[in-house]
């Protein structure tokens, strides 16, 4: 197990290294000259050259890559071109916000999705099953900006329960952030809900058909105990794995949601960096995203092995 973990960690490092190269190359191949963007059309050649030299853009590409990589690993992520601020605290602050939002979304979508899915699976083929399936799917089908705007219209403008703008400040205490988190989290939940509910439903239905549930019933267990003790654990395996894999998306992929609510997460930082052609910032955000995705995948695999004793990591036979 420890060996397996080591091997996976080495692999993880390799993945991130390769990704870093790709990220770097793509950013350098983007059309447009950074110095030109920063200084404007009117700037003279001499000023441009001076800026390029200052930013290290005149060095050969391999050297630029190496410098950047070493800096990134040692915690010096550089200064953003556009804002002239150090990149690391900025990205980490946004990352914290994104983690908050992801956490809030999971707190909402997991219990709700699993509950709906278990109910639908238990009552498969009946009216409530159909209702749950159709309604969750219908909501998922709507794009986030539509559900987002509808939610703002309802909760912020008509009912006035929650704020429409979620642009939280870094120094706000947690309990004040909470109401501002709610609407974006609900919007992201609506996207995730149908996946979770449908996976859970399918899991419950297939486990209920297994012979061991008959064994459990023949022990004289009540249907509820049978469901709780025997069916749920096995039925939730695929759900939990898929949720773990989608963690990456939850943390760094909520670009639309963040934009709709003006929420300062990593996704909005990404659009900002692209907008300003801030290559260094863009690279940093992309790297953080890659790390998050890679770790989420590893987490999913480990979780699966932890929950299913049949999976023995690292000792595949034949």
């Amino acid at each position: 197990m420890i060996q397996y973990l080591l091997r996976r960690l080495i692999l993880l490092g390799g993945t991130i290294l390769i990704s870093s190269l790709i990220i770097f190359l793509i950013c350098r191949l983007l059309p447009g000259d950074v110095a030109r963007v920063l200084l404007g059309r009117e700037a003279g050649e001499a000023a441009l050259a001076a800026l390029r030299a200052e930013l290290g853009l005149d060095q050969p590409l391999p050297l630029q890559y190496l410098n950047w990589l070493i800096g990134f690993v040692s915690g010096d992520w550089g200064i953003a071109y556009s804002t002239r601020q150090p990149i690391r605290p900025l990205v980490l602050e946004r990352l914290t916000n994104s983690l908050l939002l992801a956490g809030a979304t999971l707190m909402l979508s997991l219990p709700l999705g699993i509950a709906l899915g278990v109910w639908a699976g238990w009552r498969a083929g009946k009216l409530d099953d159909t209702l749950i399936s159709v309604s969750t799917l219908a909501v998922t089908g709507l794009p986030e900006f539509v559900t987002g705007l509808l939610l703002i219209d309802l909760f912020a403008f008509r009912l006035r329960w929650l704020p429409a703008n979620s642009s939280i400040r870094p120094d706000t205490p947690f309990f004040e952030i909470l109401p501002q988190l709610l609407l974006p989290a609900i919007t992201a939940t609506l996207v995730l809900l149908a996946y979770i509910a449908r996976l859970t439903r399918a899991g419950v239905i297939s486990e209920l058909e297994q012979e061991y549930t008959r064994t459990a019933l023949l022990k004289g267990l009540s249907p509820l105990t049978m469901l709780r003790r025997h069916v749920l654990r096995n039925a939730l395996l695929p759900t939990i794995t898929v949720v773990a894999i989608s963690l990456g998306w939850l943390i760094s992929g909520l670009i639309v949601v963040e934009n709709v609510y003006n929420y300062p997460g990593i996704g909005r930082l990404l659009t900002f960096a692209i907008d300003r052609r801030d290559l260094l910032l863009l690279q940093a955000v992309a790297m953080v995203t890659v790390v998050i995705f890679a770790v989420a995948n590893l987490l999913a695999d480990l979780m699966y092995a932890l929950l299913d004793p049949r999976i023995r990591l690292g000792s595949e036979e034949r």
Partner: protein
Amino acid sequence: MTIPVLTVNNLTVAYRVGQQELAVVREVSLAVHEGEILGIVGESGSGKSTLGLAILQALPSTGRICAGQVFLDGVELTGLSGSARRALWANSLRLVPQNPLAALNPTMRIGEQLIEAIGGDRTTATAQAINVLKRVHIPDPARVMRSYPHELSGGMQQRVMIAMALHGTPRLLVLDEPTTSLDVTTEAAVIDLLAELIAEKQPATIFISHNLGLVARLATRTAVMYAGELVEVAPTMSLFAQPRHPYTQGLLQSLPRPGLRYDHHPLHSINGIIPAPGALPAGCVFAPRCSLADERCRCERPSLIAITEHHLTRCHYWQQVPQSTSLPSVAAPSASSNDNGDVFLTAHQLTKTISRRQSLFDKLRGQPAPVVKALAGVDLTLHRNRILGVVGESGSGKTTLARCLIGLSEPSSGTVELLDMPLAPNIQRRSREQLRRLQMVLQNPQEALNPALTIGEALMRPLIRLGGMDRQAARQRVPELLRLVKLPPDYIDRRPAQLSGGEKQRVAIARALAATPDLLLLDEAVSALDVSVQAAVLNLLAEVKERTGVSYLFITHDLAVVSYLADDVVVMYRGQIVESGPVQAVLAPPLHPYTEALLTAASARGIRLREAEESGSLPENGCPFYPRCPRTPGNICATTPPPWRDAGNGHRIRCHIPLEELQIIQRSVLIEL
């Protein structure tokens, strides 16, 4: 007469299929007394398992009891409320299912599952669980309690299920094919255990099985089920000695028995197939397949009548059911079956090792990769126009051997020669002519035929690719092939889904025969078939060999089939041949302790093996069978490879025990039996 524990009255069970309800069990009545074992036999589709589940009130959600009642100790079970039924399930009604691995929760430790079944206070339940595991002869109960189901061998899993079914004081026990997924030697031990526990706990027992031999061993009374109906019920002895229903008689006659040989005695087989529920004939359900049937049988459904106090049958003409189930006189071994044809194919020192994945550290330390020896030096000679049987338990390397011969697996070392020419280890590098000469039939016809191709297309392929025919000629040859395997010519345009299992296996055989091979490898080719269908396929194989002169390499775990069909036999254990020779010499009497265990597994007084440890380490140099051998003479077996001993006539045994001693042991065993 005591009051029966279980009484079933006119029970009818239906499954909902689409909009229809199809009755799969019809008007079944039976009674089982305390401590009595009632056998229920029937082929697949007869409704026997459904009957078992209906009695336990544990039908799947698509099934429903439409009519009739089930009484347990006078209490009607069909109308019980949920909680009353749960109490009965917990205390009185028990099931041992066919597949223990599926019946155990994969993510829960054995101990937890057992404690839950026992119920009550946790500490008491734990102690009781350990006791009941000891009771089913599990050597290390504490370890098993901590294990997950997949960590145990099949035999151990089934012991756990039996422990779960027989703790406390069960009133009714349903055994639903409890040993079908196990090897014969494990099956023997599990049946012994069941007999012992039933004798002790005295539940009323229903033993559902397709295996007539097992039923004969365990059941005091036996009911024969066909197409959802009981067609005959009688004390087991009289049922087997004097069957009074043509179906029972047909089933018994279709079993290969000692003394019967393929070249002298074609087996009896029952024509046709079991009718599907929903397409039942108007009169007697068996009439379309019955040789006694007349107009009356086709119109008037017979009722279950008592011909003696204990013998019931559902036949208008039970008096005419032939009673000659006695064996035909054992013919002297014919000259032809000892006449060795030319050597056709030889294998020298075939090995196949499968390496397990090695850890990084071990690799760095230069440790050799751990390997499993699927074949450990197998020599084999096949003669033209003869049938070589290969027997052994699962994991003995039978299938790997066949796959190496035909080139689907590459052996790790060793050679295969066809007519003195070396064969390429990989099938893709063999010539068309070599491909044509060797063909294979797989165990499961369901998966061996491409569902998208018609039967005609499937049969034309080898004709065109290996036989060098053009489409026109190939198409004209297909009806002839169908005739060879006794299928009607209009099957040419059908697809596999429209065929029964037996018919599909015939198509698979026809396909393998299409390009006139010299050798057919049959890998458990009749194991998945019901006995009456198996008899027909065995007859077919005998007939085809007679007509075309093809040789067979016949892999099976069923020794009765081998003694019927094979001329020579090799017995395999853990990748090695432990005994080989002409079939009569090897099986009567069996000399090698492993052959003896296989052969006497079906008998209540046969020798029993210690259960195989899944990952048990084999003696490095000694005899692979030593850890399980009941007749081992001592330490030499663990340290020295056993020598080959020649018993004459090509009969060879690999054992440390001298031949004379083995013969003496066998003589005393014969007297004991």
